[in-house]
């Protein structure tokens, strides 16, 4: 699709929308962490509280300025999310195995 800016789509005219979509993706991820934390909070507060704290951290990370030159910082942020989910999966595995068969 041709646009007044000469590009072939709207994003060529306004690349800022891509940044906004990325921020929204971070927000959805933070909400997902919060939902998992809230679900765990009642029966397993030892796991639930850190997960809720992680959701706040993810929320904040999503609001940091997005500069392509800060690649190493972004790598650390994404690594944190991976470590967080892996930790939650391990905790869920322990909780499940401890549940009566």
């Amino acid at each position, binding site marked *: 699709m041709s646009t007044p800016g000469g590009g072939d789509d709207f994003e060529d005219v306004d*690349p800022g929308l891509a940044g906004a979509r990325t921020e929204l993706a971070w927000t959805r991820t933070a909400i*997902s962490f919060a939902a998992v934390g809230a679900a765990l909070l009642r029966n397993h507060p030892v796991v639930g509280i850190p997960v809720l704290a992680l959701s706040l951290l993810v929320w904040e990370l999503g609001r940091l300025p997005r500069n392509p030159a800060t690649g190493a910082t972004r*790598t650390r942020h994404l690594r944190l999310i991976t470590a967080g989910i892996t930790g939650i999966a391990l905790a869920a595995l322990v909780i499940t195995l401890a549940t009566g068969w």
Partner: protein
Amino acid sequence: MSRADSPGSAGSPGSAGSPGRHNRAGSPDSADGPGRPDPVGAAPGGGEREPDARFTWANERTFLAWSRTALALVLGGLAVAQLLPPFPGVPGARHVIGIPLILLGGAIAVLSYTEWQANQRALRRGEPLRRSLLPRLLAGTIAVIALLSAVLALVSAVTGHP
């Protein structure tokens, strides 16, 4: 492909980019649009430079979408093991369904990070992106778990109520 379907924008891991967009990432004229951030300097060692920011962000959104999928799988597995009533006549059935879901969630979390890294590297080098392993892994494992659940439910229905 509409703007709304761009990589990761709809929260769907399946929308992880089209070949057309990938090809544009490596083209020399892909970063000269008006108002678009210019790639920053070439990395030492040659051959690498920061891609157009939009591709970096799309890659990041795809990673985040897979992360949410992983979280949903872990929570789903936990819910099956903790909240479902026991299957009469099939001890451990809830665990047989729930544990693979949790393991799949953990695996997807790790694999989505390695794919994000590989894609970012390919974007920097202007190389084509590799085909993702994750959709096939997710579809295959969920299909197997669904089949297993159906079998367990049938066995429970037959043996649990004599």
